[in-house]
């Protein structure tokens, strides 16, 4: 089970601020992205522009998301 938090434009596209996602074990980040996009169609175009923060560290294509992790979906930053 993962906890996924959506921020800013990703939250708006997802329609929720956070959700629990059953993944059945360690999950490659690419597979997680596919699962998120499939479960929330409105999110797909935004998700492709977002970074994923897994347990506080920015995920790369090689990251494997451990079961139980907190995953943050972060749109491009726009401070200043």
């Amino acid at each position, binding site marked *: 089970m993962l906890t996924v938090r959506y*921020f*800013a*434009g990703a939250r*708006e596209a997802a329609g929720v601020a956070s959700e629990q996602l059953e993944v059945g074990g360690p999950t490659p980040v690419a597979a997680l992205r596919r699962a998120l996009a499939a479960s929330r169609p409105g999110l797909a175009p*935004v998700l492709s*522009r977002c970074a994923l923060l897994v347990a*506080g560290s920015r995920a790369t294509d090689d990251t494997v998301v451990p079961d139980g992790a907190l995953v*943050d979906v*972060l*749109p*491009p*930053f*726009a*401070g*200043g």
Partner: protein
Amino acid sequence: MTEVSSGVGQSDATRVTEDVLDDAAARAVEAAVAAPECGAVVTFRGVVRDEDGGRDVTSLDYEAHPDATAVLRRVCADVAAETGLRVAAAHRFGHLVVGDVALVASASAGHRAEAFAACSLLVERIKAEVPIWKKQQFTDGESEWVGL
């Protein structure tokens, strides 16, 4: 006072906050970089502008990640380490209207060239690395997330 999670070991002036960034707040950021050997203090204020891309803007809604203050403090520490200078910054979130200050960033140095350069570097790093987002509200009623 509402702030996004704090760190330790740096000035309280460096923070991501819902508080208004008024003159007193800007002075607090400057005070955090002041030192007897520094003859130059450069402060940048980022202010909500009334247009973007030719469209009239009425307000901006800033959102900050819970770790935003910790990231801002790390960014300041990185820039300080790279330049050897004192830097500090405060960023506001919440609902801001045209003319409101969103960001105060200060750097100090012995002389002005280094202080200007460090302040500019600090602002660039903040924009690139601190998890903050903003949604523009236009006069025609539409809105959009900046950068998305």
